[in-house]
């Protein structure tokens, strides 16, 4: 396969998705309902990234067991984020929960 052509093609389609909407949408007045709908994009898309990452295991099956350290760390960090509203504290406690739970799991064999 011609790799230069492949990279050029991939670069072109990716840029053609990212840039034109950014360039054009700001220039035309957005209808109010569309604008209101777009406010939900961050919450929707980030949740759609988070949830599968914590409940789907390496074998791409649903894993809701307590041996799934990602799930446990996610369950720890969500209330931390809710109570403290601190991103840094959420990240630190979330990572510590992941490493701590994994360590406990190895201890228990």
């Amino acid at each position, binding site marked *: 396969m011609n790799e230069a052509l492949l990279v050029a093609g*991939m670069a072109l389609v990716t840029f053609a998705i*990212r840039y034109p909407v950014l360039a*054009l949408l*700001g220039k035309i007045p957005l209808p109010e309902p569309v604008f209101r709908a777009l406010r939900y994009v*961050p919450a929707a*898309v980030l949740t759609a990234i988070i949830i599968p990452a914590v409940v789907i295991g390496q074998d791409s099956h649903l894993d809701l067991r307590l041996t799934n350290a990602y799930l446990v760390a996610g369950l720890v960090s969500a209330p931390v984020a809710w109570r403290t*509203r601190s991103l840094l504290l959420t990240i630190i406690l979330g990572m510590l929960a992941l490493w701590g739970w994994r360590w406990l799991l190895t201890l228990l064999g």
Partner: protein
Amino acid sequence: MMSVLPQPTRRAEFWAGVKDTFPLVVGAIPFGLIFGAAASANGLSFAGAMGMSLFVFAGSAQFIASGLIAGGASMAVIILTTFIVNLRHALYSASLAPYMKHLPQHWLAPLGFWLTDESFAVVIARYTRTDDSPYKHWYFLGSAVFMYVNWNLCTYVGLRAGQIIPNARDLGLDFAMVVTFIGIVVPLVKSRAVLACVLVAGLTAVLANPLPNKLGLMIAALLGVAAGVVTEAYFPQPAQDKPSTPAEGEAVEAM
């Protein structure tokens, strides 16, 4: 994070963007290393892999393309797949566009090129904060450049030293992005509409996870947005409980 900027300057915004993107950069490291390390096994040359990171700059699409090359897919299939995998970026651009309409094209083109899941997450949070800093695009630039330099460095190191790198995923670094996104999303859930949005998006993302090419993510995002809009229309709440707008916004709080 979401650094407090009492008197925002271009430089201060740039470095705040770098700082707030740090955990996401850490989360991207294992993926950049793995992409580089696996390239030759997948039949991708050094220049091909480096070229993807330099000119395409889209992690998920690069991984999927790399796998498709290994599977002997045609160029047309790989490029079409790249298009589908990256479609979600149109949603990001649409969300950011109203805040960036004053910017000239020589800003919009590079920032558009550098748009990723990670930079979108921190930059939209910056734009929805109420302060009227005129330099929020410098925050975007800091976030984007940091992600770009890191991704290309990791690709390079992965290509050069792939075999001797310990499995970074075993260290749990891939969780850094997830926990950062949790820290951004949870404080947004301040109304029934946003709650409906995240419940529908999360459930759909799990149910649609077997779909290829990030289509599940795209469908989940669209259904989540629809759930938010419908709930807002049928269960109206006082204005202060609604998600932020540029005028009245309040996103992740400073720390």
